[in-house]
């Protein structure tokens, strides 16, 4: 099986050709937006932890800049951030793609920065957008899987169909990644049984128990499921988790990828299914998976969802026939046919696979047709990690 992607100078393969205008902190976000506005292929992003955002945020921004879907990067800084644009830019530049950076303070303010930024991005656009798609084997794909706004249909139909796709992808030599440790609480055993070796088995237990500690601090009121989950029939974290892990398929778990202030580990070459330490919060997880090298993310929803992502196309799947009927303008794949007894899990899994190959070759997802490019990042509070005695 083949798809048509963009070959990068470092040999990696993208499925989109994005010119990323990255404000390293939210103070310069408006300038980044003004620069990207009106230029073909340009997308502006930032992070909202301010100018002393920490290393986990820096790792994510570097990772998304390095992502194969990104053809070129302009970093924009105010000039006094703890995380300077050139420090991030120099690392991203090692991929060989065009990377540049500007300082709003050095250039003398908004108008000058926007003018200079637009010159750089326009020239990047000319350089990058002419690139032609070439045929690649499906083994070059890394696909993220995520579910959210889950209801009972997610565990019965949507996630099993996506899990079936993951098995088919892995069997064809591709890679898949899932990053939502809290949605593994109560599902440790079925995941641990799939660990490639004892070391990976231990990593799975540690990742899940660490996340359980973070979300169940005595005396702290933390909601970890949404109201839609309960209204949709899911009553405990165990039930939600056992349904959620269906989308990870059944193949061996190759590794748990580290995602800390020290390191955001990438999906290695060679294919297989990987867990990533991270979060269950949707657009943030997608940024993590993109930073680890996912080119596409499949999102399974029960209640329905309308978003996209700045770096990776999001293919939306629902197992709830009523949700699909109501929101077919936003949801790419109807797995509700499984709930109705009209179609097998294997058949829907194959439809998901076909859609992934088409989207990888350039077909826009419904979210992309609306121009959605959500972007947010997540960080753990290093103080909490110390207080909870969570070792790396």
């Amino acid at each position: 099986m083949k798809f048509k992607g963009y070959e990068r100078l470092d040999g990696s393969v993208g499925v989109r050709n994005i010119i990323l205008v990255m404000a390293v902190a939210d103070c310069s976000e408006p300038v980044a937006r003004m620069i990207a506005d009106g230029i073909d292929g340009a997308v502006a992003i930032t992070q909202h932890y301010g100018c002393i955002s920490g290393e986990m945020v820096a790792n994510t921004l570097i990772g998304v800049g390095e992502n194969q879907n990104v053809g070129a990067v302009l970093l924009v800084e105010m000039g006094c951030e703890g995380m300077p644009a050139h420090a991030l830019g120099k690392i991203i530049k090692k991929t060989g793609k065009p990377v540049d950076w500007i300082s709003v303070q050095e250039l003398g303010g908004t108008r000058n920065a926007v003018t200079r930024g637009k010159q750089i991005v326009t020239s990047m656009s000319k350089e990058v957008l002419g690139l032609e798609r070439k045929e690649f084997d499906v083994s070059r794909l890394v696909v993220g899987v995520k579910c959210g706004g889950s209801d009972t249909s997610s565990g019965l139909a949507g996630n099993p169909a996506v899990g079936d796709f993951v098995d088919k992808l892995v069997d064809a030599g591709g890679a898949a990644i899932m990053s939502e440790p809290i949605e593994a609480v109560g599902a440790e055993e079925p995941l641990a049984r799939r660990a490639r070796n004892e070391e990976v088995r231990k990593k799975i237990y540690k990742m899940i128990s660490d996340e359980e500690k973070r979300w169940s601090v005595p005396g702290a009121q933390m909601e970890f499921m949404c109201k839609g989950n309960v209204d949709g029939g899911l009553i405990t974290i165990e039930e939600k988790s056992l349904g959620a892990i269906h989308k990870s398929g059944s193949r061996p778990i190759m590794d748990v990828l580290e995602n800390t202030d020290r390191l955001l580990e990438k999906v290695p070459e060679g294919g297989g299914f990987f867990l990533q330490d991270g979060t269950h919060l949707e657009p943030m997880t997608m940024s993590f998976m993109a930073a680890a090298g996912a080119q596409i993310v499949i999102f399974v929803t029960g209640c329905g969802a309308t978003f996209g992502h700045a770096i990776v196309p999001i293919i939306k799947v629902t197992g709830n026939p009523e949700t699909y009927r109501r929101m077919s303008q936003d949801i790419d794949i109807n797995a509700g046919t499984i709930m109705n007894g009209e179609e097998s899990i294997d058949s829907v899994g194959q439809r998901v696979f076909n859609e992934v190959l088409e989207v990888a070759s350039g077909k826009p997802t419904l979210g992309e047709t609306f121009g959605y490019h959500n972007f947010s990042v997540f960080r753990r509070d290093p103080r909490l990690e110390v207080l909870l005695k969570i070792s790396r």
Partner: protein
Amino acid sequence: MMMNSKDNVATALENLEAGVVASVIFPSQEVIREVTTKQAIPFGHKIAMMVIKKGDKVIKYGEVIGTASQNIELGEYVHIHNVKSNRMQMPEVWYRKEE
């Protein structure tokens, strides 16, 4: 739909009224038995497939999803009022109490 033969709950694939007889199927669509609803069961919510005593495990997907916090009869609605997580409890928040 009953996900695994070890399960003691099944999921309603449509809104069920109280006192109706529903067919129970496996994911393969094989019909395995019938159950009479004691209460209305909304789409996607769960019904007890046997008597589940207070303190017994509630099983779905062949795995434990929580513990019964009250005695549950065959055909009864299984939801947050009669099952508690063994791992993490959701807090009550003011904006939900206001509803």
